């Protein structure tokens, strides 16, 4: 890491927080006017590389120097907008930058196959805007600026999901419902921020948290808390508010699903952690009660119900989308414990889940590009024709279940340990139960791939239709990461603990 960071000149690193967001935005404008798709992809690749390098530089900065603060426009925080990066959003930067880069490498064949020629450069431009929006939400320190970046990433995500309509017309209704629920979520968030502004007079999150503790009995602050949690819960697909996610992930283009599944809900979960620990404060009565009842209980119900729904799906991507809702339930459970161990376990699971779902959705995209697969029964006998992709898919599936030798094991392990420390035996039972349900739907898919006989009408084409190189490489990088980080978990665990410690130490206290 340090070696990569030393590549950049010092002057660039001091302005890294601004450049990491501005480069994708300006490259999006450049990509929009590119004549054809390949040039658009080139521009996108360059800007995601730049952002990835800068992300590494910022993470190294945070690990050595603690909090990185950058005043936009040179105005001091309460007057101007401040970018604030501590241990908590350093993890997010790592996930978004790395997954964004891998998804873009994966994108060329997948987009060439699914998006019409004349619209590819605009499509890449919309992706860059979404990528920059997610990074912006992760590192901004200003509440209203977070709303603006939330809207930037959301509007481009609605469009990206809607672009799936060239393959399946249901993408349009999925994008429309996602737009309505996403906008209601963002508007609830704005109402919450408006109430916080009404109570504290400032919009800077650090400044806000220093003024909130002595307003703990004000009902405006309690209403603000409720609205912000509902708004961000809608964005993070928390259990009862997740109705938009399955269709959106199932009918979007494959490239979009593999990027969104590993980053979008993670960023919304980060904003929940940031507001819960750094803007509001856990000791407040109304926050205390929300930990157990809103996050832990709903997290557990979400884990069980969403996993059960996943078992009965016959569309492969809808199945994985429901499992994503279940995995968000794991993170909510970790958050609901309210302890440093719980938050660290949920941040660890955030990173692990990004790796698992990235590999799984990329593998499904590779199956789709060759055989246009939709239903699980279409996956029959794919191990013979696409062995590499099937192995990557299997590693991802096993990691989803939490089988030892894969990184999923550690996140389940630490969640269980944190739950036991908290004396929540019922949480451990729920963890085991949902892992078993996850085993059923993963086994169902793996059985189709490895055991079942291929469909008679495709035996001819089945000889050896390997996925294109540009798709295999990122898929395998993620699959290997799933295994490598099982044996070398120290790096991820240290990042997760630093995130939890930053969450608890941030804000007023």
């Amino acid at each position, binding site marked *: 890491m340090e070696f990569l960071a030393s590549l950049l000149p010092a002057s660039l690193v001091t302005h890294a927080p601004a450049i990491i967001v501005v480069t994708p935005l300006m490259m999006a404008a450049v990509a929009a006017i590119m004549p054809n798709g390949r040039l658009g992809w080139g521009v996108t690749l360059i800007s995601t590389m730049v952002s990835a390098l800068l992300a590494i530089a910022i993470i190294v900065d945070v690990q050595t120097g603690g909090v990185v603060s950058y005043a936009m426009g040179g105005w001091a925080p*309460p007057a101007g907008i401040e970018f604030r990066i501590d241990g908590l959003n350093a993890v997010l930067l790592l996930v978004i930058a790395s997954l964004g880069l891998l998804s873009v490498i994966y994108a060329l064949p997948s987009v060439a196959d699914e998006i019409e020629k004349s619209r590819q450069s605009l499509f890449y431009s919309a992706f860059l805007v979404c990528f920059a929006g997610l990074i912006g939400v992760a590192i901004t320190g200003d509440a*209203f600026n977070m709303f*603006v970046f939330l809207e930037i990433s959301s509007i*481009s995500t609605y469009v990206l999901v809607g672009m799936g309509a060239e393959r399946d017309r249901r993408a349009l209704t999925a994008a429309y419902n996602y737009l309505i629920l996403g906008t209601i979520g963002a508007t609830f968030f704005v109402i919450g921020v408006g109430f916080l502004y009404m*109570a504290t007079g400032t919009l800077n999150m650090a400044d806000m948290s220093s003024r909130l503790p002595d307003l703990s009995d004000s*009902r405006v602050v309690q209403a603000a808390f409720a609205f912000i949690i509902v708004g961000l819960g809608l964005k993070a697909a928390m259990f009862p508010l997740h109705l938009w996610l399955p269709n959106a992930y199932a009918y979007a283009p494959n490239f979009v699903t593999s990027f969104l599944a590993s980053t979008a809900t993670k960023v919304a979960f980060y904003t929940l952690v940031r507001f819960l620990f750094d803007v509001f404060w856990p000791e407040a009565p109304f926050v205390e009660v929300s930990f157990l009842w809103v996050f832990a209980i709903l997290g557990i119900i979400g884990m069980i119900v969403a996993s059960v729904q996943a078992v009965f799906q016959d569309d492969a991507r809808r199945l994985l989308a429901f499992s994503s809702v279940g995995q968000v339930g794991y993170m909510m459970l970790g958050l609901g414990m309210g302890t440093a161990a719980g938050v660290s376990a949920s941040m660890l699971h955030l990173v692990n889940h990004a790796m698992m779902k990235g590999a799984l959705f990329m593998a499904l995209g590779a199956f789709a590009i060759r055989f246009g697969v939709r239903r699980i029964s279409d996956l029959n006998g794919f191990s013979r024709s696409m062995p590499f992709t099937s192995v990557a898919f299997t590693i991802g599936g096993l990691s989803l279940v939490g089988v030892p030798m894969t990184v999923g094991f550690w996140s389940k392990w630490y969640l269980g340990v944190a739950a036991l420390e908290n004396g929540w035996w019922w949480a451990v039972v729920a963890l085991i139960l949902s892992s078993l349900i996850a085993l059923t739907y993963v086994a169902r898919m793996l059985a189709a791939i490895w055991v079942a006989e291929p469909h008679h009408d495709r035996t001819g084409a089945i000889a050896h239709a390997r996925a294109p190189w540009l798709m295999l490489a990122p898929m395998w990088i993620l699959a290997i990461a799933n295994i490598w980080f099982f044996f070398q978990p120290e790096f991820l665990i240290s990042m997760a603990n630093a995130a939890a410690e930053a969450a608890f130490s941030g804000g007023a206290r």
Partner: protein
Amino acid sequence: MTEFDWTQLLDYALMAMLLAVGIAIVRLRNLFAAVMLMGVYSLISAAWFVSLDAVDVAFTEAAVGAGISTVLMLAAMLLTAREAEPVKAIRHWAALIVVSVAGAALFYAVGDMPVYGDPNSPANSYVGMDYITSTPNEIAIPNVVTAVLASYRGFDTFGETVVIFAAGLGVMLLLGLNPGKKKGDEE
């Protein structure tokens, strides 16, 4: 609210009209009338913004809200349907439940909200007012709102420009610009 100033009457009238137009929009089934009333609603809200001393916002709301949104909704309605189905009873009651829960949460918080127009409420005594005292010395332009919009919180406006750009991208991607027929069909 010490001495009675007549502009309050104007505010009451505008608010009453807003409520009436808002409820009419919700109850109407004819989309053409609903879109027209939406334009009226934006103009009345622009008028109320002026009396709330928010002149920049009134200008934008009149231009963007009443102008472009109404043209957009009319064009979209021309391309889709002009009559909405009646609201089903089940959805009506579900909506009422959701609305009453959210409304209760909001009314619960009204008690602690600052009094309307109170100069030393937390919002009006901190960052907001500092802009007025610091703008002459640091940016030296009369319109403080433009100073805050472009310089103090310039990054917000950059994000906003990107939001509008993303919306333009979205419409170009979803509907295409269907350029002039003679230059070869871009679609």
